[in-house]
């Protein structure tokens, strides 16, 4: 279970999250939708502490991190949070100097101290899972965008995170390549991988997700099931935004 309570984040004097509450149950997918600059990415990045909130509470299963003011998270908190989360970036951010397999096993070997043999077995299994078992020795530069993002998903899953955080995973891809990535995420959702996905993709928000939150101006304007938020939104702002998604 992931629970965010009153998460507040500001860059300088610019407040980008005004006390956001969100709960994600194990084995479910939550989609964050909303306009660019509305706080989707920042909220995701607060969950794995790439951004440090200035207030609020983050609960990841048994781990609770409380934020106040400029306090930096402790090493233990950072380590605990990163172990429990995996992140997929809009621009992939694969390690260009490592092969697909090298990317996937990097965290296992460097962070978790898994032996090279076992790491390789687990890495190959993860690449199979995203349909790229045959690309283990390819470098990121030799892969299509869709393939790169699938490697990035495998890399994010390698540490067995409790939640996979996806920051607009298909936004840098053409529709065909986006499809590959959506298919992989759909399969993961079916397998019970807990996910929070910031997205403009209706397939992810409408089909894969069990919960949709519309985020604008640092507030969750509306949240509920995809049917509620995407088909019958109650807020005028949500209605306006969703109508553009559908067109």
């Amino acid at each position, binding site marked *: 279970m992931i629970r965010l309570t009153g998460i507040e984040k500001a860059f300088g004097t610019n407040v980008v999250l005004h006390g956001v509450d969100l709960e994600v149950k194990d084995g479910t997918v939550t989609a964050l939708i909303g306009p660019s600059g509305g706080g989707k990415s920042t909220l995701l990045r607060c969950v794995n502490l790439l951004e440090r909130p200035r207030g609020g509470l983050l609960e990841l299963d048994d781990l609770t991190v409380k934020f106040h003011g400029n306090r930096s998270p402790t090493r233990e908190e950072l380590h605990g949070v990163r172990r429990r989360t995996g992140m997929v970036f809009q*621009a992939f*951010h694969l390690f260009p100097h490592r*092969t697909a397999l090298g990317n996937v096993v990097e965290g296992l070997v460097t962070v978790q101290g898994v032996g090279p043999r076992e790491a390789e077995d687990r890495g190959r299994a993860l690449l199979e899972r995203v349909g790229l078992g045959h690309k283990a020795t390819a470098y990121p530069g030799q892969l299509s965008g869709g393939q790169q993002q699938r490697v990035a998903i495998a890399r994010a899953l390698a540490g067995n995170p409790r939640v996979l955080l996806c920051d607009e995973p298909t936004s840098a891809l053409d529709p065909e390549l986006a499809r590959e990535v959506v298919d992989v995420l759909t399969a993961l959702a079916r397998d019970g991988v807990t996910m929070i996905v910031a997205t403009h993709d209706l397939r992810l928000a409408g089909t894969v997700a069990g919960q949709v939150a519309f985020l604008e101006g640092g507030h969750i304007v509306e949240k509920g099931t995809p049917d509620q938020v995407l088909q019958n939104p109650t807020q005028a702002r949500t209605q306006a935004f969703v109508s553009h998604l559908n067109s």
Partner: protein
Amino acid sequence: MPHWLEILRDAFVPLVAAGAAFTVPLTLLSFTLGLALGLATALARAFGPKPLSLLARFYVWIIRGTPLLVQLFLIFYGLPAVGIVIDAFPAALIGFSLNMGAYTSEIIRAAIASVPQGQWEASYSIGMTWSQALRRTILPQAARVATPPLANSFISLVKDTSLAAAITVTEMFQAAQRIAAANYEPLLLYSEAALLYLAVCSVLSALQSRLETRLGRHLSPLEIVR
């Protein structure tokens, strides 16, 4: 055998011997120490706390702003005045390392900055600490960017070690000077020394190309600028 060729032949062994005994070790040691100092300085300047960062900038400012020859004279001839006496070879080693450190620190700093921020974030997201991210993700990529300018510095250093002659180190140029003083053949001797420096630098240039290929083996052909 013509006379000039005999002179070159006779000087060849002493010149190469001086090169092997002083020029090459001085170059390799100064470069290694300078690179370590450059890395430390770059990290201090880019990531260190304010006082450390300022110290790094101060060091680079002083070294880059004063002539290498003057630095060598200060260390070898100047420091004894305050009771610090250093032999010629270690004095040269200190001077060249300090010099190398200042210049390479700027190369390394720029190379680290050239690695996209996303690489740090991806490293953190899989649980790496700052030092793991630096070692495993950032420096390997920075190394490829830094190789051509570092090779520049290295090749400059090979030739700059001839300045050590001025503080009595009997490196290759000093050896050429001595022989020329004895046989009055400065044109031949300095030409031979020049050719030997050129030979060493040519080998280094070839090694640089191989290193660049190796560090860039993950790149697609379009990303490689030859």
